[in-house]
């Protein structure tokens, strides 16, 4: 929307966005098509598309004359008719693509710059024609939110939608998702989907699908290949394995983290190898880590009882232990400590976390220790602070990622509030979230 001032004049002159107009300012004449005002920039500048395609902003002030020449475009918000299912070949297996936000297919209106997201099976296939050779497609958008707006309740919604699709008999499933919190959702689904019989791939894009260089195309194509042709019945992320368009990596949902803000290969496995490498061009799927759940004929169940009052506390120099009081007052039921190094917290003077942790655990609220190092395992005894923490009854979460531990503690607390059971469940491996051994090759960021 333009400024009130401009909107008023436009109304008086019966000029609409999309009209060809003549504008005279300081005796200079401009002609072009009036564009919608984008939200960024000066609302008091008229945006005009010149005949050479460029947009310019002309400041609107007293003395500026506007005149409508003719209506050039009828611009309206387009609603694409969604086509939910598309069958190419009855012999091919069928997969479901569930949308939670972002787009696989987009159309650009080069006139306005508007990007029209589409989630119809037809548009997805138009954008990624090779899907025709892999599977028949069912497409369904169940929500449309940015991944930073994802919530634990929405994980449950996704889990239920997945189960519904699996029960309809598809061979594999793809969930498209914004990338920022994709690894939290991946962990949540890993715990909530019990007895998973088929592959479930979470796919995002680091370059949006309205550009020709988008990573969506390869990511979705590889994910489709993976969920149809692999025997990995796990929740995995499937995204670029390098900054080239050559292969994707399938990484276990509980062992994956976004570790780059913008690169295509932002997602890396932590403390284990990727489960598989999926070549894009020759479509070869190479298993890199044999430790995975095989495709099976079990009946999937949703186990989505969760306790959402769990907080992550990061340890840093100067942290004041009082911060925990806030959460206790708000009746939080569990804490993940993103400790330093092997799992240490401050133990000296007024910054010591020990008294508060002791109080918290005694009140029956679990404290789980993970490391902000990201890679590696925490240890309960090596240093004195670790031993002090151990004495106070905290739970050391092995080589679990803090994000995964956070999601898991919610899920565990959804099942029990008894400290000994919480501890036992936190240390039980439900979805590949911990490994007893970490091999040398499992730390290779560069």
């Amino acid at each position, binding site marked *: 929307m333009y400024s009130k001032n401009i909107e008023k004049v436009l109304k008086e002159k019966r000029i609409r966005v999309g009209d060809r107009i003549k504008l005279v300012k300081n005796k*200079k004449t*401009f002609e072009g098509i009036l564009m919608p005002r*984008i939200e*960024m*920039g*000066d609302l008091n*500048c008229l*945006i005009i598309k*010149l005949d*050479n*395609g*460029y*947009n*310019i*902003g*002309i*400041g609107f002030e007293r003395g500026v004359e506007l005149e409508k020449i003719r209506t050039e475009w009828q611009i309206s918000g*387009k609603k694409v008719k969604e086509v939910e299912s598309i069958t190419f070949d009855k012999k091919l297996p069928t997969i479901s693509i569930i949308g939670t936000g972002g787009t696989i*297919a*987009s*159309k*650009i*209106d*080069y*006139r*306005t*710059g508007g990007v*029209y997201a589409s989630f119809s099976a037809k*548009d997805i296939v*138009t*954008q990624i*024609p090779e899907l025709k050779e892999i599977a028949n497609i069912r497409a369904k958008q169940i929500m449309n939110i940015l991944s930073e707006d994802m919530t634990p309740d929405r994980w449950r919604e996704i889990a239920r939608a997945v189960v519904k699709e699996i029960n309809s008999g598809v061979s594999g499933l793809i969930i498209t998702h914004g990338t920022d919190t994709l690894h939290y959702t991946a962990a949540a689904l890993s715990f909530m989907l019990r007895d998973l019989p088929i592959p479930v791939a979470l796919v995002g894009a680091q*370059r949006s*699908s*309205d*550009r*020709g*260089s*988008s990573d969506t*195309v*390869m990511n979705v194509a590889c994910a489709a290949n993976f969920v149809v042709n692999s025997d990995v019945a796990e929740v995995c992320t499937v995204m670029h394995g390098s*900054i*080239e*368009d*050559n292969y994707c990596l399938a990484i276990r949902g509980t062992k994956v983290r976004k570790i780059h*803000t*913008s*690169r*295509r290969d932002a997602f890396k496995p932590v403390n284990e190898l990727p489960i598989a490498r999926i070549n894009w061009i020759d479509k070869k799927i190479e298993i890199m880590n044999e430790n995975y759940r095989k495709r099976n004929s079990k009946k999937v169940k949703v186990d989505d009882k969760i306790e959402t009052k769990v907080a992550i506390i990061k340890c840093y120099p100067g942290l004041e232990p009082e911060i925990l009081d806030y959460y206790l007052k708000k009746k939080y039921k569990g804490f993940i400590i993103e400790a330093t190094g092997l799992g240490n917290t401050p133990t000296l003077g007024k910054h010591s976390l020990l008294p508060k942790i002791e109080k918290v655990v005694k009140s029956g609220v679990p404290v789980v220790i993970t490391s902000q190092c990201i890679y590696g395992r925490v240890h309960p005894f090596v240093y004195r602070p670790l031993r002090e923490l151990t004495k106070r009854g905290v739970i050391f979460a092995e080589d679990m990622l803090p994000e995964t531990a956070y999601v898991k503690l919610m899920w565990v607390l959804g099942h029990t509030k008894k400290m000994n059971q919480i501890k036992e469940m936190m240390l039980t491996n439900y979805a590949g979230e911990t490994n007893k051994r970490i091999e040398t090759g499992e730390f290779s960021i560069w």
Partner: protein
Amino acid sequence: MVNVLNYEDINLKCGLEIHRQLNTSHKLFCGCSTNMIEKKPITEIKRKLHPVASELGEVDVAAQYEFLRNRQFNYQVFHGENCLVECDEEPIHLLNQEALEIALQVALLFNCIIPEEIHIMRKTVIDGSNTSAFQRTMVIGLNGFIEYKGKKIEILHVSLEEDAAGLVEEKNGSVTYRLNRLSIPLVEIGTGLIVGYSPEEIQNIAYTIGMICRSTGKVKRGIGTIRQDVNVSIKGGQRVEIKGVQELGLLSKVIELEVQRQLSLPRVEKETRAALPDGTTKFTRPLPGAARMYPETDIPPFKIEKTFIQKIKKNLPEPWDKKLIRFKEELKLSYDLANQILRSDYLDLFESLTKKFKINPSVIANVFVSTLKDLKKRENISVENLIDEDFEKLFELLETGKLVKESIPDILSYKVKNPEIAMTEIIKKIGLEAISKEELTKIVNDTLEKNKGQPLNKIIGIVMSKVRGRIKSEEVAEIVKKEFEKVY
């Protein structure tokens, strides 16, 4: 072919688009160097591009898909000259303000109107020359003009844009590009239709436009830093666009040949052709669909404040016709030399060197307008690889008496062939370390001793052959004469 065409009769109409790279300290949207000095890529990235659906319909997508399906793009990455931004792995940073200021200067020099708000646009390109599949470009000025032979030539727009990646090779559907050129700032000057001029005059108009850009002192020089597109139409024909004329001197020939080509055809198709080094052109695949521009959304449009424009107006560079007069009067260059250096790629460097050193400006100018050309012609070496610092060092050594001007061609030739060797080392290596009068006197005496009875001129000749380039020739003559007289 002898050209006897009357261009008015055939109603020759041309439009020019002139591109010039800007010599900014970093690229248009990131901190990478614009120097393109790295020789070997540090890595190569393989990518594909995908069709993007537009409201223009699916036929268009299908065409794009067919065009792109079997094409692989390889992008060479260079140390210091590429970062994640050009690799399409990081969003663009804020616009380079230095480039914006230069572009605004250019727009004002062309008497353009400056929009109050600048909108960065994405222009779709699917030939792979941009990793993002679009080129970012923005109109900085419009509705300007220049004067040529007393008449106005319309300047439709001045745009600031990012340069495309440089093509390395294309074979079997695999296209390789160098990413170091990608996103070097570029100004594009588009003229209105130029009607009533000969190809020769149109070339001069292009030249004038180039000179105006040059007067900012901030445009790059050398092969590849300038590109001209020209569209040509004649009576009753369609407009044919010819892209990428790299040498200005070729422009009139390109136009003449295109006119002849069009005259030889029964019907002229509207098409895009690429300019070849010999002045002929070849057909290139036109992109389907209309001009595809849509707004850049990674960074917002920005306002151009009036006070900012006023500041730039106050500091506009000296117009080139005034510069010519100044070169003659203040720097005492001959008219020819002044004109040549003004047209030279080394103009900016010449000006900075004349400010820095007390050397006779004609000596400096001659190095750029004749010595380099002679070397190129005689030895066929890449003199364009010499960088500004090489010349600075050269004239510093000349000013401090470490070398004599006669030795400049040999030193530069050696430097081109051995860029890694420092100038001071070169002087020692090829015996060009200037010699003292005492040493010269000794050489003269030796020569006299060994060539008893020879005439003076012969002795001067022998000594000169021994010391050429190491000491001024006048001094050689003087000392030989003196010593000669002592003996005889």
